């Protein structure tokens, strides 16, 4: 009885403090993981000494992974914005007829085909294609695996980001645009003052989710000889014969980057949500649904 009552009291205190609650949860999980590692080391299944000695080896691969992700993501944005614009405003321009329509139609068709092709095929296939083609074109160049890998990731994220931008631009409702027109804004002003700011709010979360997906996809580059984190796990495992330890370490690095970042994204989104803009619930159909399916 006494225990139950005090447990209830503790729960009451925690109930309205999500931050404290998650800190406790994370701390106990970390403690649990530490306990697991310690007991695995105790029965000589893993060697903590090996992990301590080789932790620094992961620094360069981690930087490689992050660099590949950052560069392709940034280049992707630059290309994806115009593609998203063509995708969302193309149909209207084509309806107008005349020279505009003639110019827009092939652009719209090309962009659509590109997006469908990227989203309909595995990233690994795209990476193999780019890696092998660049390997044949520039034989023996030591920078080629990394550059080819970044190129493949860029081409890949371009397809997904373009759809994020299209959805963002399209979800600015017509009533908003009508309202802007009614107070005498010109099309350019409507875009600059209404469509762009509202669209930006709507795309931030899917775009950040895309960054997380891209970071996970960067692990594929290890297969085509880019020395990133996933490659490092295999390398440590094969050459220093402690594969389990290597994978535990690399998994820990991935988790340490992806989980806090994902949480931060969700937290930021809830804080900066504009009431009435976008959907009522934070991210429809479940937070953190991967933005890499076919239908966005």
């Amino acid at each position, binding site marked *: 009885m006494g225990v139950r009552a005090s447990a209830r009291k503790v729960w009451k205190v925690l109930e309205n403090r999500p931050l404290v609650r998650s800190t406790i*949860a994370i701390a106990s*999980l970390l403690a649990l993981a530490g306990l697991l590692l310690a007991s695995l080391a105790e029965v000589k299944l893993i060697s903590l000494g090996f992990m301590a000695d080789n932790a620094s080896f992961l620094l360069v691969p981690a930087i490689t992974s992050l660099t590949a992700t950052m560069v392709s993501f940034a280049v992707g944005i630059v290309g994806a914005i115009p593609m998203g614009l063509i995708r969302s405003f193309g149909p209207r321009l084509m309806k107008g007829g005349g020279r505009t329509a003639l110019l827009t139609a092939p652009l719209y068709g090309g962009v659509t085909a590109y997006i*469908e*092709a990227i989203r*309909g*095929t*595995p*990233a*690994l*296939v*795209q990476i*193999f*294609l780019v890696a*092998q*083609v660049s*390997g*044949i*074109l520039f*034989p023996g160049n030591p920078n080629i695996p990394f550059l080819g890998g970044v190129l493949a990731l860029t081409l890949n994220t371009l397809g997904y980001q373009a759809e994020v931008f299209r*959805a963002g631009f399209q*979800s600015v409702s017509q009533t908003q645009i009508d309202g802007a027109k009614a107070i005498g804004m010109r099309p350019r002003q409507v875009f600059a003052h209404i469509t762009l700011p509202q669209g930006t709010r*709507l795309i931030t979360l*899917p775009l950040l989710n895309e960054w997380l997906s891209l*970071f*996970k*996809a*960067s*692990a*594929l580059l*290890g*297969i085509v000889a880019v020395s990133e*984190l*996933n490659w490092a*796990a*295999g390398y440590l*495992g094969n050459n220093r014969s402690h*594969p*389990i330890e290597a*994978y535990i370490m*690399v*998994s820990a690095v*991935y*988790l340490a980057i*992806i*989980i806090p970042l*994902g949480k931060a994204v969700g937290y930021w989104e809830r804080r900066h949500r504009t009431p009435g803009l976008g*959907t009522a*619930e934070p991210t*429809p*159909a*479940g*937070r*953190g*649904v*991967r933005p*890499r*399916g*076919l*239908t*966005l």
Partner: protein
Amino acid sequence: MGTGGTKDTTPLVRSSSGGSEKAPTLQERITASKGLILRIAFGGIATVVAVFLLYLAGYVGLYDLDYALSLLPPRGRALTTGLLATLGFMTVVMPLGFGLGFFFGWARTSKVWLGRAVATTYVELFRGMPPIVLIAFAVLITIVVFRGNDRIDLFAFASLAGVVALAAHSGAYQAEIIRAGILSVPTGQTEAAEAIGMSKATILRHVTLPQMFRVSLPALGNEFASLIKDTSLLSTIGGLELTFQGKNLSAVLAVGGGNLDLVIIIWVEIALLYFLITFVVSRTLQAVERRFRVPGLEAAQL
């Protein structure tokens, strides 16, 4: 009960039930209207399963698979094998991932503290790692654990572990979809069901699940498309599917000789086959979604 209409009228209505009514019952009409799309969906699933079984039968030696495939031209043969294997992996990974996702998604909404904690940990861990690392890790652990055990086929066991790891990765995403679906059913709905005396199981079967699935279907379709593409990762652990065949073909036929055209052709062919699969699956799911659409229960879209 009251002496008025309420009690008297109901028997009155029921007594007329003996009369011959030709109009189809509600149940019959539902089955009739949903029959077509269900038949198409089940037909598609049946085809995939049949293809998989055919492949499996050849694989275990019920007929000469190699001979059957040798009738095809060399590249066609590799691509056919790859396509069959990819479809085969799909038939295993998709239900497995969905099962895991459903279970943990349901556990995420559980009233029991421990159930929520376990499910949340599962979701964060399996969603927070690149699937390719998960697969390699799972294979590695299986090899370490079962190494030296002569009574099992280590390669088969390790491959299975890789497949389960991939399913678990997708399951983590699906768990979040299922959870959101369950939470999207307003409490008023379950309350109303309770108010007419439905049991917990009936409420789940006839109120919560049908509403949840309509809301979750687009996101689930999305996830299935991602999962199909992710089966390409199984090429890294020796799964003889499309990507593996592409790597093999280009290594044997093209890369060594620096044959650029052939490399491109091979990978475009592989890409087209993937595109075909994802296209068919996502269109089928969209058709299912359209068929079961109900006004007022549209899925929340971005």
